[in-house]
């Protein structure tokens, strides 16, 4: 089996992807719960309801699903961001992050193509959804795909600094 160099370009891309996506996920999750843009900051229940309204404005999910997504998504974003930073079981979590970012991209692109006059809701604050939002989410989706594919490729090759596997007695 070929060994992987410690600092090849795939590893660098994986690191960039992990750091960028982890920061964005943790920030987005906290922003939805804390609502830094509001003074005074609303209680968690109200912040959650406001986020549910933003999800609902996409007109993609039934009301009960919007409420549930608003309840769990911010926590999931923070947890996934931390897991990306840790790098533990990267293949699993990067795949999940890619699916979620893909979902965001799909929702934003759909709303844009349907000319829905709504706020993005990406970072909780009022931010009209426009072409730039679609491009930004598209770029993040591409980064997540590349990071995940590279993570799978790198997992097949032992790291140059890894302890060599003990030889089997013949």
């Amino acid at each position, binding site marked *: 089996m070929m060994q992987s160099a410690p600092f090849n370009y795939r590893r660098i891309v994986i690191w960039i992807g992990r750091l960028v996506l982890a920061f964005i996920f943790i920030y987005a999750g906290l922003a939805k719960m804390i609502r830094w843009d509001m003074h005074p900051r609303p209680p968690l229940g*109200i912040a959650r309801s406001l986020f*549910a309204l933003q999800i609902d404005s996409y007109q993609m999910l039934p009301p009960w699903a919007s409420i549930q997504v608003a309840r769990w998504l911010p926590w999931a974003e923070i947890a996934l961001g931390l897991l990306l930073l840790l790098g533990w079981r990267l293949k699993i979590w990067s795949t999940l992050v890619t699916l979620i970012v893909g979902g965001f*991209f799909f929702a934003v692109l759909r709303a844009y193509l349907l000319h829905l*006059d*709504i706020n993005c809701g990406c970072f909780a604050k009022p931010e009209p959804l426009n072409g730039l939002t679609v491009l930004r989410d598209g770029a993040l989706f591409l980064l997540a795909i590349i990071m995940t594919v590279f993570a799978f*490729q790198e997992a097949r090759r032992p790291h140059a600094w890894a302890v060599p596997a003990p030889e089997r007695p013949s």
Partner: protein
Amino acid sequence: MSRRFALTSVAILSLACLGTLISVAAATPQKATTKKPAPPASKSTPASAAAQTSVTVNGVADIDPAKAFGSKNAPVVMEIFSDFQCPACRQLFTTTTQRVMDNYVNNNKIYIVHRDFPLPMHAYSRVAASYARAAAHIGKGDAVVQALFQNQEKWEMSGDVKGTVAAVLTPAEMKKVQTLVEGKTLEPLIDKDKQLGMAVPVNQTPTSIIHTRDGQSYPVVGYVSYDVLKTLLDQLTK
């Protein structure tokens, strides 16, 4: 390996684009507004006697009582900035707002304020706002607003706002409404609503601003379903 990566990426992106296209095709697109020559812009007269009757509730000023419903002692004031020609405003009015009226306004939990925010891109929304305002001032606002929203697709094609309003009023009522519209005495109130909206700022319609007694304001942008809005209103009206 790089070829496999490229193929995988292209396949995933293609699937995402395909999914999006299918979803867009399946969804009902909002009807594009038929552009018609705009009616002549109305000249606003100086603030009339009608403009002086505006009230302040829960810190929300410049409320035209004819366009507001509920108890002034309600813990929450909900301002709705809307445009009669906007499809999402129609959707909000015919579904969510009606249920908010039934369950919160009629129970004195919410004081609801309808603000006119006619967008310049809509040829007849200002005319519709003038008729609705005039009808509200003779006590027939509800019927006219319902008629305007329910027949939105018809009058935005034909431009016959007057006919739509006349269909739900008696000749005597229509005469009073027509006098108010032609006299332009209520135009300053519509202009005031528009100014207030621009100060928020309202970037799109409908935009609802929910004000609580402690001075906090929560903007809600676009169409939202009643069940989701209810989760917020229940917490605020506790």
